[in-house]
């Protein structure tokens, strides 16, 4: 809750205290007790934002959470979710007898119009973490109406913004990219004292001493491209016999449903002459240890993804990055300085070329890793994320004060703009007060899905599965499997892969 001091200070500056409603998605609850990138993002930012505003968070119900509660001055209201239609009803019902100055919706353009109908005077801001404006997600007519009602569209990468304006050019003036952040205390380079200790311990534990370790972290799905990385290994083995590949991904050990893709990747991996370590599910609070143990980070994404969070984590961990020219990923790479961009992501050879360069040049690895860490410290902190959101909110505050029409963007007067600019400066000064944000985030941010953002509609690989038209951009974290880590050093042989009697089944006729 905003302290009296903060309120007074702001009142002196002629500002008022906004009533803000944050609307989460219908998939997972906030606080992020079941994981979820967006949920974590919200939980990580609201503490600081609540210093200057009265915040209500509207999310979905969960057996482990009450329908209403107030924690640290933030009000939580929970209505039934899972299906957008049901959630929408709950939101509308809640908003009928409430008034807010600002409503900040996350990742659901389809909530804008229903919200507007019951909140005719609120400023509405929309944060886009995925391409939810695409045609199969929202009817063009509704999308256009929604955009007209918005005062700002925050996107997590320029790519997401571009995807929106390609369909709806009128959104251009409302767009603002706010890159996500990383916890610099958790993800630390191996060249620090603490990092070195972690690195040595992980490497000892998994028999990796003296190896050059290539790291993949993300979901095991064709879109994420782990197979292309595995297929690049044979070319590298020839000149670099002391490499190891670590695949940190939660699907590998899934007990009830091994996808065809996972089967494919591990069948390939089992044939490498160098160690391929597949960690299975890694507890969120331990994931940074694998980054510490690695030498190179690879993001072999094949799909147009918004911008995978692992890039920030790799930078913070001081790792050079090899990523692909897909979606927002190249936006955080300065070619040759903190990483390389693979132009043809389906080509294992191109990965091998970049990797070979890094593998044979330890100085280059160090330089690039250090530069990445510097970028993370300068540009990708959570403080900066929070302060960006705060200045968007401040901009809304100015609009309310100056009675600028809802949904308009260009009729702000020069004075308004100057006022906003001054605000932004003040905001930076106030960052010092937000120094505790990081510690808040340490607790929660680890809970998110590895790569943060999950592609839509990527359901099970099984061809017989009925596909569902529901949105699926968030993943519910799987329960940790009984057996946590399987190591196949010096493989082959690759054994105790979970035995599935697939053969039996398929041949039963």
């Amino acid at each position, binding site marked *: 809750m905003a302290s009296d001091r903060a309120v007074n200070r702001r009142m002196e500056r002629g500002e008022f205290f906004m009533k803000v409603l944050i609307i989460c998605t219908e998939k997972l609850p906030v606080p992020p007790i079941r994981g979820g990138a967006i949920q974590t993002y919200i939980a990580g930012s609201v503490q600081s934002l609540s210093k200057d505003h009265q915040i209500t968070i509207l999310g979905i119900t969960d057996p482990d959470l009450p329908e209403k509660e107030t924690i640290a001055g933030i009000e939580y209201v929970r209505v039934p979710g899972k*299906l957008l239609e049901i959630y929408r009803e709950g939101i509308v019902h809640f908003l009928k007898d409430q008034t807010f100055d600002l409503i900040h919706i996350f990742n659901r353009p389809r909530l804008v119009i229903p919200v507007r109908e019951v909140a005719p005077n609120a400023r509405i801001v929309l944060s886009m973490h995925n391409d939810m404006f695409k045609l199969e997600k929202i009817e063009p007519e509704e999308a256009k109406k929604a955009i007209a009602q918005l005062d700002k569209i925050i996107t997590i990468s320029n790519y997401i913004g571009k995807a929106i304006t390609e369909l709806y050019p009128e959104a251009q003036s409302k767009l603002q990219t706010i890159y996500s952040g990383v916890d610099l205390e958790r993800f630390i380079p191996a060249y620090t004292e603490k990092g070195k200790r972690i690195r040595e311990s992980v490497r000892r534990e998994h028999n990796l001493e003296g190896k050059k370790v290539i790291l993949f972290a993300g979901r095991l799905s064709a879109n994420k491209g782990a197979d292309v990385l595995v297929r690049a290994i044979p070319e590298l083995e020839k000149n670099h016999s002391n490499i190891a590949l670590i695949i940190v991904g939660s699907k590998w050990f899934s007990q009830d449903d091994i996808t065809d893709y996972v089967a494919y990747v591990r069948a390939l991996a089992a044939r490498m002459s160098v160690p391929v370590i597949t960690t299975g599910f890694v507890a969120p609070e331990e994931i940074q240890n694998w980054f510490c143990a690695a030498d190179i980070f690879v993001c072999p994404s094949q799909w147009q993804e918004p911008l995978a969070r692992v890039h920030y984590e790799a930078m913070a961990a001081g790792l050079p990055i090899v990523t692909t020219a897909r979606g927002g990923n190249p936006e955080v790479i300065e070619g040759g300085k903190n990483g390389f961009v693979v132009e043809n992501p389906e080509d294992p050879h191109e990965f091998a070329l970049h990797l070979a360069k890094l593998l044979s040049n330890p100085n280059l690895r160090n330089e690039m890793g250090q530069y990445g860490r510097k970028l993370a410290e300068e540009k990708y902190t959570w403080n900066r994320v929070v302060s960006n959101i705060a200045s968007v909110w401040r901009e809304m505050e100015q609009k309310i004060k100056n009675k600028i029409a809802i949904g308009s963007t260009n009729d702000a007067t020069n004075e308004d703009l100057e006022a906003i600019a001054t605000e932004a400066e003040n905001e930076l000064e106030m960052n010092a007060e937000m120094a505790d944000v990081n510690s808040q985030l340490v607790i929660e941010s680890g809970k998110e899905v590895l790569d943060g953002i999950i592609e839509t509609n990527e359901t099970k690989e099984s061809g017989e599965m009925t596909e569902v038209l529901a949105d699926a951009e968030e993943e519910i974290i799987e329960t940790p499997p009984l057996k946590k880590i399987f190591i196949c050093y010096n493989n082959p042989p690759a054994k105790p892969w979970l035995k599935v009697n697939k053969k039996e089944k398929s*041949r039963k006729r």
Partner: protein
Amino acid sequence: MSEEQIIIPWDLDGTLGDLFVPEYIVEMANVVVTYYDLQVSHMEVITTKADKGGLIWKIETDKGPMSLKILHRRPTRSLFSLGAQEYLVVEKKAKVPPIIKTKMGENFVEMGGKLWFIAEWIQPLEPVEKSLEGAKLLCSAIGEFHNLSKGYVPPSGAEMASRLYRWPKTYKKIVKKMAWFRDIAKAYHEMPASSTILAVIDMFESQAIKALQMLEQSAYFQLAARGNKEWGLVHQDYGWSNGQKGADGMWIIDLDGVAYDLPIRDLRKLITGTMDDLGTWDITWVKGMIDAYQETNPIEKELMEILLIDMSLPNLFYKNVKELLFEPTVFMDGELETLVNRIVEMDKTKWPVIEQLTEEWKGVSSS
């Protein structure tokens, strides 16, 4: 059994036997039946989907024999199928088993994170004869099913289960997996089936690519644009066991996988499966089956083209080979080699049939 107990798949390595049921699920079943106005005297496990957490019992009650089922899918997904079953029985008088209501008037009980429901056990019910006549009965029955299912709207709270718009995606996945099969066959080149697979994979891959191109150039997109409700439901798991002969005609059972789709998906699967059983493609059978289907649900010209395109996918090869990804060192044995060779031989008999059907359909005007 605690109240929070969630049903999880119980037989992942297939060692417990087909009819094994964990004790806590039996206990749940005993609780579930108390939600109904039924006296249960006997329960018998009929089949399990142990790897997915699904199950069917036959129960004897004071109101006659019933089936008690655990639907393995997400509750919101199962709701779609239950709504469909009710719609077909109540609105359309279709021959699918009527759902028994709970004391509260619900179609299901939710327990262990799954939906359970009870339906009438239709008897007598017997499989159709394994002959062209039997195949025709199956075809006309599913045609009628498709026809009656048009107009279905799922209840609120149910997911929209639709595969109508996903055909290109499904085709692309098959194309992609051909490359996976090749990669694995190369990586495990010492296995008996590897060289056979490598010898034919290019052919089947180009068949898949060609089918995809044809689909994209076909009227598919216009047809799909008519929408889910217009097309109605497709069983998705229809075959010689889910269509059976009752006292007064054909019944269709096991509706839990139904989804909106182009109706000919069921027909195509039935035809390919039947040809597989025959060991060769037989124009008399294929035509007989299509004609029988058309008696209850006529196929317009544009849709017929898609049926032919769908037949031209390497369905049989894909279905039989895809398991090699799981345990290549076990699966790619001599048996698979023999099987692949058989599929290749069968494939040769498929093309003349498709060609002849294409010819015959060319002159036909669109409905």
